[in-house]
């Protein structure tokens, strides 16, 4: 890997001898379950969102604001945004684990987690702003 032209022995132990006796990595099962659990939760949430897209297709901003101010819609949107970006982070981590080797692995994972975290937070703040600020603005406009 380091120098394909000149073969040299860098590690005298096989993978099997390195792994033997260490037990499992401990963390993998949790990641696997988190990926599945978030996927299952996203099934009904996505279905709900598709219905909302049909309701909101071609809608104007006041209509969307009115929709977003309903507590139930806020709850569902917040769950959808959080779980979507949580699931994204889990999935992208697997891709980084598969394709990024060596020293770049850890920083790549941290960078990805940072970006996805900020995106998810941005989505959550937007949903909350629509819910909390939108309702007061419409009452001001009405009153």
């Amino acid at each position, binding site marked *: 890997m380091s120098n394909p032209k000149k073969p040299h022995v860098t590690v005298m132990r096989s993978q099997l001898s390195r792994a033997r006796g260490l037990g499992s990595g401990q963390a993998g099962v949790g990641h696997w379950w988190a990926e599945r659990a978030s996927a299952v939760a996203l099934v009904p949430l996505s279905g709900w969102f598709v219905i909302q897209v049909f309701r909101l297709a071609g809608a104007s901003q006041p209509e969307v604001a009115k929709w977003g101010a309903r507590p139930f819609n806020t709850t569902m949107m917040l769950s959808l945004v959080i779980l979507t970006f949580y699931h994204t982070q889990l999935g992208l981590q697997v891709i980084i684990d598969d394709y990024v080797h060596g020293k770049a692995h850890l920083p790549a994972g941290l960078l990805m987690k940072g970006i996805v975290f900020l*995106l998810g937070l941005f989505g959550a703040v937007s949903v909350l702003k629509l819910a909390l600020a939108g309702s007061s603005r419409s009452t001001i406009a009405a009153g």
Partner: protein
Amino acid sequence: MQDVRDALYVGQRSDGTLTRRPMSPHLQVYRFRLSMFLSIANRAAGVAAAGGSALGLCWISAAAKGPKSFKKVQKVTGNPLGQMLMAGWALALVYHFVAGLRHLAWDSGYRFSKKEINEDGPVAVGVTVGTTLALVSGIVGVAICRSRKKAS
């Protein structure tokens, strides 16, 4: 730490000199199967769906910001290029959804034999294409009807 795979890639010739063992044959030596395309397509669709969701945040944040920002987003959603992007996002989401359901079935021990996986592949493609077309045309149709109603 060195890559542990190095340990088994280096072997000795009969004269004692070191040599790199050949790597196992990769993609190009295998006959194309639908299942291998669908497998990598699921990963690609996941990445595309995530990218689309990141762009989708523009919609909700613009709605939160106010009518002016929302008009800007509507310019993108009304543009054919933007609509193509959204159709691609829908395709990625629908395929990732369908393939995800297959994975959940496999994880529970169903439809995991070679025969069943080969049977289900074309079905997954059909369901994905059909659902995406229905969703996209339905949403576009509803949007057009609604804006016409407003105009009149």
